[in-house]
């Protein structure tokens, strides 16, 4: 065993006030020295692994495919367990995503597995907007992580990561080519998530047709510029197996949770009158390859790609959208903080301006109303005066009339009195006359 050491020196002088690192010059000349004994830091990967084991792993799979294409069955077969769920109906009005979390444990590894299903995908008559809920869901998970990362008091190390690490796209086994819905959806998703296309219910396709179908699909994907997940080929340990497996993309899978007796063993299979399709037989379908690639070889790489590529892209776009830039015009040290403060001040200023505007408008309105009211008051006063005058006049008229009437009445009374007097006089005279007559008569008689 030979150990070699490269020395690179840089000096940081602290002169008590500002710590200026005078040039982090790296001397690239290497000097060979040897470690004279076993130090023991080769246990580092184990320490790291132990830490991760105690924390547990997160893995989130998104299954995109039409209703009834076999998503739930495949998940059951893949993870060798029964995830309870009722099959979905075909009359969903729109696509919605259903997420379920499960905790699996194998030897000392705890896995928090989340399976997200697209319910109602491909069922509607108008499928224009089918991809939108999916994209929104993926973005929402990125957003949640970004929010947590941007918080001041954050706890990233025990954050339950809900970002989608792998998207299994279920292609219907038509035998011809991809549907346009598939192309559109995959194009929208390829920059946000690792897409692994698989052909579902592959036992309906004969072997020679399958080969043609696969190459047709791959060429369509390439010609439309869809970026599916590339199995990593840069590490020697996995390069070989990944390279051989990539040739078989998209994997033609068959899922089954029922066991059939084959030979003298029980194996997962589908029993038909004409034969038995064994799930784990590599000649029958590519299920074993999918399981190898997805879980046993590349799970960590899928998680890493999600974090370093898709999430970083989302973060960059989101932050740029919000107006943050990396280099301010005067390159202050804390651009995020600065921009944030500036934005906040801007916002407050706007608020203030709006408030002032509103206040001004309010004052103006009040003035107007006041003027109106004053006018109205004046009008009213005028009316009142007018009315009063009219009233007075009427009153006078009435009084005049009354006087007249009284005069008439008086006259009448006088006349009446006079008339009565006359009458009484006349009567008296008459009676006197009568008396006189009578007297005369009497006198005459006498």
């Amino acid at each position, binding site marked *: 065993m030979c*150990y070699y050491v490269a020395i690179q*020196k840089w000096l940081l002088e602290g002169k008590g006030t500002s710590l200026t690192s005078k040039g982090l010059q790296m001397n690239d000349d290497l000097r060979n020295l040897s470690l004279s004994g076993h130090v023991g830091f080769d246990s580092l990967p*184990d320490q790291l692994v132990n830490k991760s084991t105690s924390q547990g792993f997160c893995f989130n799979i998104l299954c995109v495919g039409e209703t009834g294409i076999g998503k739930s069955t495949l998940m059951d077969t893949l993870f060798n367990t029964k995830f309870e*769920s009722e099959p979905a109906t075909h009359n969903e009005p729109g696509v919605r995503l259903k997420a379920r979390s499960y905790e*699996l444990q194998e030897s000392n590894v705890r896995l928090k597995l989340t399976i997200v299903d697209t319910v109602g995908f491909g069922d509607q008559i108008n499928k224009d907007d089918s991809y939108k809920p999916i994209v929104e869901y993926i973005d929402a998970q990125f957003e949640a992580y970004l929010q947590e990362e941007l918080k001041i008091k954050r706890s990233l190390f025990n954050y339950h990561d809900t970002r989608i690490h792998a998207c299994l796209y279920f292609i219907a086994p038509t035998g011809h080519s991809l549907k346009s819905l598939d192309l559109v959806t995959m194009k929208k998703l390829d920059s946000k998530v690792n897409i692994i296309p698989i052909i579902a219910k592959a036992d309906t396709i004969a072997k020679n047709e399958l080969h043609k179908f696969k190459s047709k699909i791959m060429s369509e994907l390439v010609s439309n510029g869809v970026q599916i997940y590339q199995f990593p080929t840069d*590490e020697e340990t996995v390069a070989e197996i990944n390279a051989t497996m990539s040739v078989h993309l998209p994997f033609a899978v068959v899922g089954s949770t029922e066991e059939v007796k084959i030979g003298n063993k029980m194996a997962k299979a589908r029993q038909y009158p004409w034969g038995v399709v064994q799930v784990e037989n590599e000649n029958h379908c590519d299920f074993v390859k999918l399981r190898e690639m997805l879980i046993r070889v590349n799970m960590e790489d899928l998680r890493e790609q999600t974090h370093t590529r898709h999430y970083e892209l989302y973060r960059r776009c989101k932050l*740029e959208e919000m107006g943050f830039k*990396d280099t301010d015009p005067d390159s202050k040290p804390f651009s995020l903080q600065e921009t944030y403060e500036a934005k906040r001040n801007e916002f407050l200023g706007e608020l203030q301006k709006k408030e002032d505007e509103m206040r001004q408008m309010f004052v103006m309105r009040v003035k107007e109303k006041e003027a109106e009211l004053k006018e109205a008051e004046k009008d009213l006063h005028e009316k009142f005066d007018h009315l009063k005058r009219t009233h007075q006049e009427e009153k006078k008229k009435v009084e005049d009339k009354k006087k007249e009437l009284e005069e008439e009445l008086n006259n009448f009374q006088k006349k009446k009195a006079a008339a009565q007097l006359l009458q009484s006089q006349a009567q008296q005279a008459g009676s006197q006359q009568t008396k006189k007559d009578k007297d005369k008569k009497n006198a005459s008689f006498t």
Partner: protein
Amino acid sequence: MEPPAVPEEEEEEEEEEGAVPLSMAPGPVGCQLFGYVGIEAVLDQMKIKTMKTGFEFNIMVVGQSGLGKSTMVNTLFKSKVSRKSSQPGQEERIPKTVQLQSITHIIQEKGVKMKLTVTDTPGFGDQINNENCWDPIIKYINEQYERYLREEILITRKRKIPDTRVHGCVYFVPPTGHWLRPLDLEFMRRLSKIVNVVPVIAKADTLTLEERAEFKQRIQEDLKTHAISVYPQEDFDQDPEDRALNDRIREKIPFAVVGADQEHQVNGKRVLGRKTKWGIIEVENPAHCEFPLLRDLLIRSHLQDLKDITHNVHYESYRVRRLNESNRPGLSPLNGLPAKGEAGSHL
């Protein structure tokens, strides 16, 4: 095979059509696996990945000159990591202020690559007036946090942010045999809040075993009275297993160490040790000194833990402090740093 365990509750997110659930179902449901799936292969995948990217470890040694810091680092990493100041033909005046010197090496063992940075602090505690001699050190540590923070908040971030934060600070206590000096207490009090401090008794071959035990006892009491929490901190024990393990370590803090980089012949074997007229002190012999314990703690068992606590606790609290400050450009103490394009390190 046990019967399939049906999950007790079905937790579903009830959503309206078109709406997107922003939070997952509240509790994950436990499931029974019927057979081997292969999930544990993720551990190997992780190991391979980390071995490919390599590790970074930054350690700082603080103590007065002549306490054997450089020798200790050389012994720890079994190579000439630091240049000793007492080499013949090299006259180094005691610097007027504390100057920090960082040396980086890339060492490899069994396929595991490590970028080791050792920061030395010559001049610490050497002056007559040692007030505020810890300031340059605190500034250096904070500067590393600042550098990392700035990388982290960039819009276009690097795939792997270079980590220059100090993961562990080894503080050398002179073997007086009495108590901790005020300088020691001050320093450890301030620094244990921002970095993992591992105190060690230097040149422990001047103490007999009883003296050593008494000294340790007094130091532990001193630390407790002054509420200084050195590594491994009690608050960060994650489960009872960890706590038991760390309690055993805490009983032995501070380790009494002897450093040596010369090999001698003892009983037919070549061992690292110090040769004196009255015997040979074997560095790696647990009966002679506690160097193996220190080495195991720092490297073999708790290296990842040191890094994790630095990242999850100390760095986060620095970040909280920094983000809560109102950013007034004139008062920023880090104006002299180079633009981010120049900073960084390549393996």
